[in-house]
Each structure stands twice: as C-alpha cells, then as structure tokens.
C-alpha cells in the first residue's frame, strides 16, 4: 500500500478547485477522510466529461472504480477552498491509474495524496473494453509532466 507518490504541485498536470462544504467536516472539525474520495471521484469525472467528452447519461462505455487509496498527512477543514491535482501514472488498454493530491489553496506541497484506478466497461455487459479514443487522448495529456 506504500507506493511513493509525489506531493509536489508541479507534478500534477491538471489542477481543479474545490470549495469544501459545512457537512464535509466531521466530529473532529476536519474534512472527514471518506469525503476526500468524493473529491477524487468528482475531479476524475469532471475531467473525463470536460476533456474526454464523456456523456454520463448515454455513453456506451463507462469507467468503474476498481481500487482507490489515500494517505492523509495534514487535515483540511470547511470553509477552506482546496485544490486537487490530477495526473495519470499508468494508461493501459482498458484501465487507467490516476494519481491525485490535495493542496491548500495555492499550496505547493500536498496535504493528502492517493490514487484511483478506473476500468472502462461496456455499460450493458459490464465487460472491460478499450478506452474510447477521445478519453484516451485526454488521459494521455495527463501523463505529460509540467516539469
């Protein structure tokens, strides 16, 4: 579970801004750990929709999460606005592994980092299928490191 992952903002080709919400905080007064995965889920799907043309209502091929992980170093809390870094570490025929990191607004070093593996499947048969071309092109752009 301890694959080393970059905490540096410059290593993430795509940065998305997320406003935290009141109910994201738990009894500790921090954003609950589970909620980080909702941020991951949102940032990944937003990217596929905006840059890969994913139609979440009608697309015949959809991404299914098969594995996710997050390591938490420092807490964040509502009402902070945070930034999520997104990159692609591995692009296979039917699957992709995204690397994600959570930054305080303008932060250079991540306060949490993790990964998310999507397998693309036929919406009807649920069987893995090749990643559709427009999505693959968008994902390839996330493999380009800015540095």
């Amino acid at each position, binding site marked *: *579970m*301890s*694959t080393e992952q970059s905490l540096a903002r410059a290593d993430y080709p795509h940065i998305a801004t997320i406003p935290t919400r009141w109910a994201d905080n738990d*009894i*500790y007064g921090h954003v*609950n*750990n*589970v*909620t980080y*995965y*909702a941020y991951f*889920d949102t940032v990944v799907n937003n990217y596929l929709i905006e840059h890969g043309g994913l139609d*979440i*209502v009608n697309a015949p091929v*959809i991404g*299914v*999460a*098969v*594995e*996710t*992980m*997050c*390591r*938490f170093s420092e*807490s964040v809390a509502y009402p902070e606005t945070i930034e999520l870094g997104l990159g692609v570490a591995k692009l296979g025929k039917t699957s992709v592994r995204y690397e994600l990191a959570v930054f305080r607004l303008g932060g250079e070093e991540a306060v949490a980092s993790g990964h998310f593996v999507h397998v693309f499947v036929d919406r009807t048969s649920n069987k893995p299928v090749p990643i559709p071309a427009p999505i693959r092109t968008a994902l390839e752009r996330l493999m380009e490191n800015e540095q």
Partner: protein
Amino acid sequence: MSEIADITCREDFTFWYAMATRWNDNDQLGHVNNVVYYSYFEACVVNFVQTECDNDWMKSPCLPYAAETSCRFLRPVAFPSHLDVGLTITHIGRSSVKYSLALFAQGDEEPSATSEWVHVWVDRNDERPVPIPETAMNAYTRHKK
C-alpha cells in the same frame, strides 16, 4: 498495491458490523458509489474503537486519526442490500494500527470489497502521535490476525 493482504474469508474476521444500504448510496450507474464503501468501512472501524477500545469521542485525551485508507472493489452491491462488514487487526505499532476489512452482501461468502485502514493515535490537543492507550491496545491484541 500488491502489499495488500487480501483477507477474504468470513472466518478470518473477528469483529462484525451489520448495516443496511440506503437509497442514496446508489449512484447514477445503479450501484453503490465507490466513495460510500469507505463510509461503510468507517462505520465498522468507528464502532470497533467505541465498543472494543472503549473510546469516548468527546472526552478521551487521545483519539485515532485516519492516516491511510484503501479499497479494492471486487463486485458491485446496490440498495436495498443488507451488508456485513468484517474487521481484523493485521499490524500493531507504537502509535499506529492497521485494520483489514471486507464487505459482504448478507448471505454471500465472497466479499464485494476489501479494505485497509491505518489509524494513528494522537493527543486530542496538540494532535501529535501518542502510544496506543492500554484499553485499545488490549482490544487490538485480542483481534490481531
């Protein structure tokens, strides 16, 4: 992620938490959203810490913080399934502990997902790691795989 010890048999878990899925756990694809699995695992872990470790969230001088979590999604579940979440302890350190969990649809022998959680016990005030409290340590030892 090959380091994840895949504990998948019901017999391997020593602590159980049963729960019902809810309508809004399903996402647009018609099954429980991946994020929600973590809330199921969290409910089991938190229940363990409260009942077995005798932790009082509002008063205890030290508390467990999630340091790392992961999940492998093996097959979908959907509302209105009822779930059994199993827990066992796979590593005990000075301040930290690792839980291995699995989620089963009631009646299933194969898990729908497996998960690992690492808790670090910290001082409530300064949030620095502290040794695992004695009652918690005893509970972890009882449930150690």
